[in-house]
């Protein structure tokens, strides 16, 4: 087993130092306190700032603990808890839309299916809870990417894997698509993962509005989309209503 990672140890020391000090600290003070070269301290602070663990005051240039740290303990949502909270709404969505419903969360750069409701036509279907789906080629995944800059950044080097001719493979195209998703609050995917299949998904928000997962329907493209290839408006409404209902349930609760 490799030894401890020095930069993480140093990062942790900076956080502890900031937590102990009452006011803000400058980069020089931090470097001196921890016996680090000024440049090293600066590099560490830049990274901590990027992930939101520290914030820099604009006028004084000094550092303090970031807001993301405060939410670290409370933003955790157990996936089985999510399923338990969402199950009634997911059933209702499947019954209304007539399509299969899935709920996804982010796991190591992929979508983990945490809940699956069969399409209500009693055909043979297999439960795929626990399956992993690509983020950029599914509505469930694109919704999560749209609200997760850090994960999106990891895809920036591209090119992305093509599953069909219509999969978005260029990071720039993806970025445009994600900004459109943020604008309307839901995502659509038409034959980007599987030929003949389409899906619509919307974000599930937890405490404080943080996006914790996505819920969506998927099915044959001719059922999900109209003749112009756009998702049918009632289906989009059903998906958004379900997402809102689950979010309301999650937000109203204390964790």
């Amino acid at each position, binding site marked *: 087993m490799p030894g401890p990672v020095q930069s993480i140890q140093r990062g942790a020391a900076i956080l502890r130092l900031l937590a102990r000090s009452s006011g803000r600290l400058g980069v020089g003070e931090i470097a001196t306190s921890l016996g680090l070269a000024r440049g090293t301290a600066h590099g560490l602070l830049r990274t901590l700032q990027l992930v939101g663990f520290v914030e820099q005051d604009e006028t004084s240039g000094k550092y303090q603990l970031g807001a993301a740290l405060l939410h670290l303990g409370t933003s955790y949502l157990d996936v089985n808890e999510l399923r338990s909270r969402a199950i009634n709404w997911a059933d209702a969505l499947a019954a*209304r839309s007539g399509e299969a419903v899935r709920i996804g969360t982010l796991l190591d750069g992929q979508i983990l299916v945490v809940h699956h409701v069969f399409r209500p036509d009693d055909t043979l279907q297999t439960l795929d809870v626990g399956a992993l789906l690509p983020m950029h080629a599914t509505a469930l995944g694109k919704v999560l990417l749209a609200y997760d800059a850090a994960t999106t950044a990891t895809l920036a080097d591209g090119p992305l894997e093509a599953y069909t001719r219509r999969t978005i493979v260029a990071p720039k195209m993806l970025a445009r698509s994600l900004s459109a998703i943020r604008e309307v609050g839901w995502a659509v995917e038409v034959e980007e993962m599987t030929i003949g299949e389409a899906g619509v998904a919307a974000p599930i928000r937890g405490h404080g509005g943080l996006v914790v997962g996505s819920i969506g329907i998927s099915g044959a493209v001719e059922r999900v989309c109209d003749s112009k290839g756009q998702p049918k408006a009632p289906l989009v409404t059903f998906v958004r209503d379900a997402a809102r209902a689950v979010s309301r349930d999650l937000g109203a609760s204390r964790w």
Partner: protein
Amino acid sequence: MVMRYVMSIDQGTTSTRCIIFDHRGRLVSVTQREHRQHFPRPGWVEHDAAQIWRNLERIAPEALTQAGVGLDQLAAIGIANQRETTLMWDRRTGEPIGRAIVWQDTRTDTLVEKFAARPEAAMVQERCGLPLATYFSAPRIRWLLDHHPGLRERAERGEVLFGTMESWLIWNLTGGPEGGLHLTDVTNAGRTLLMNLETLDWDDDLLDFFGVPRAMLPRIRPSAETYGVASRVLPGVRIAAALGDQQAALFGQTCFAPGEAKCTYGTGSFLMLNTGAEPVRSSHGLLTTVGYQVGDEPAVYALEGPIAITGALVQWFRDGLGLISSAPEIETLARTVEDNGGCYIVPAFSGLFAPHWRSEARGIIVGLTSYITKGHLARAVLEATAWQTREVVDAMNADSGLELRTLKVDGGMTSDNLLMQDIADVLNVPVVRPMVAETVSLGAAYAAGLAVGYWPDLEGLRRNWHRAAQWLPAMDPRRRAEEYDNWRRAVERTFDWIKPHP
């Protein structure tokens, strides 16, 4: 075209709920109100029936408003209720006589022992299909008559009425003191110990045995039939069904054919198997009960296996041990390990129910070694529910001669995927969850809608049933046999723990 709907009232142990369903059995609106649990002494549990009625007065109109549905759009009302909870009230004033004695209440234990010691005690199970136990209503009626001076005389004159919760609500809905209908249905009457399972009427010998005057008892009606029209709260709407909650779930799961079974997984769990037109007498520790009766048709009987502790074990893991912070996290913790590590938990917290009926048994954790982690314990917690289900299914197969082919499941624990897979694995049959999880309410709505012709027939109801999820067995048969053997040995070790009183 004006859309029409059916309303169900689920008068449960902790709350009363109104749900409006549409023609395809989809949920349109839900309102709910909890009532207070009174624990005046250890082992006593009571409800204030007046509070429950007030709650209904409030939530029923709310459900209509929420759905944007008018009274004239309600085709019928169906009622599902907590079973065996016992209430008496004054026919003239409508005032309850004290509080209702809830099904969990064990104040009648010494009374039941006295009844059981009588030579003719064996007649009870022969006639009504249920064993003499504190669980059922008749000993509670006797207890109330014995403990309220003058009550017996008033009951004999018909001034005081007995009912379970559906009787109380129907009486009040149809006018209360002004001409309220005093009736019950076969599934609820069947849980009193006073109804003859063959005639579906009050049995004079049983009434004598328990000392209950016939004048205070409601008329027994089918589960689905237009009983009357509400004059209060939902004026003008037909009241067309009443079923005990577990029977309602059987109906909601559309288990209409012999051999079809459902299990409702909650704090405790209730497995019920449709056995058709003849009651099957259990020789394996199950209850023989009425499943439902639709109008003039013959009653359909069922075998029931109640399991006392299933979800309650997860709650104990959370609240008693503090190893998880919410019930669904049990699955997360269990998935941190591959198997139970040789550890088994038998949750005989207050003895064991079906099929063992050992009141002196107490819970154990067995197979502990230094290898066991909290993850293994979490596995053992979930597996306890799966194996307890297996024991009841085995008893049902043996009693009925019908081989269970699929288990339909509902209730809160069905959101636990690992548990549902475990159950499929240990039963070696597919486990299926329907799309509407509210099967108790749905069953009451179905029965009411059927009675008034809102739905044409049982086949029409079946078409509304859709599979939301299915778990297929995937366990090596040898491992299944070995694990079952371990489980059974663990169960044996819970027996005879509480010493008999000297």
